[in-house]
């Protein structure tokens, strides 16, 4: 019973390509997130969605476009991939009350060559 699942687990692609990462949660949460973890393991928030509405967009290039078709899904589409986009991308979900923890997917390792 995977709570937050994201696919694919690994993604290797060339510069300039367009790719998508899918995320689904079956926890009934109303808020979903995308995080980027760089090579130094630093986790940085990219986007936050609540009930399909974009809440936060943290200085992310507009080549990154999140799409939330419903509360349970938050996909990440990346256009014109660059070498610097190589990282691990985590999807997460939570309820809005502050003490509710974020539940993370297992991450997608994106390698741009």
């Amino acid at each position, binding site marked *: 019973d995977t709570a937050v699942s994201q696919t694919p687990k690994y993604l290797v692609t060339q510069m300039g390509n367009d790719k998508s990462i899918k995320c689904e949660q079956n926890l009934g949460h109303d808020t979903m997130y995308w995080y980027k973890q760089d090579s130094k*393991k630093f986790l940085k928030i990219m986007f936050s969605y609540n009930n399909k509405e974009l809440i936060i967009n943290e200085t992310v290039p507009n080549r990154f476009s999140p799409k939330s078709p419903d509360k349970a899904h938050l996909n990440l589409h990346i256009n014109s991939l660059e070498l610097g986009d190589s990282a691990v991308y985590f999807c997460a979900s939570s309820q809005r009350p*502050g003490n509710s923890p*974020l539940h993370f997917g297992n991450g997608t390792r994106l390698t741009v060559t």
Partner: protein
Amino acid sequence: AQTVTQSQPEMSVQEAETVTLSCTYDTSESDYYLFWYKQPPSRQMILVIRQEAYKQQNATENRFSVNFQKAAKSFSLKISDSQLGDAAMYFCAYRSGPGTGYALNFGKGTSLLVTP
């Protein structure tokens, strides 16, 4: 944005010993939430413990406990009776308010090595 500082990039502890990982944060809010997450080599993000700022009592989860000092804006994690399976990257996180979608702001992490 609130900043979270973990001043120890790496720590080492012997099996069965106790280790404390430090975390400080900067905020002007009075009501907030703090978390510790663990990331083993499998890459999975695992919740270790959480603390509500309005609670004076320090949170405890089995061998894991926190020392929450609100005035000092300090939130350290103590791991007792360390086990080999505790070896991982540990992240301290601050949960922002509704204006930021309740996102977690993470520190840069502390890599914990457990030696036999």
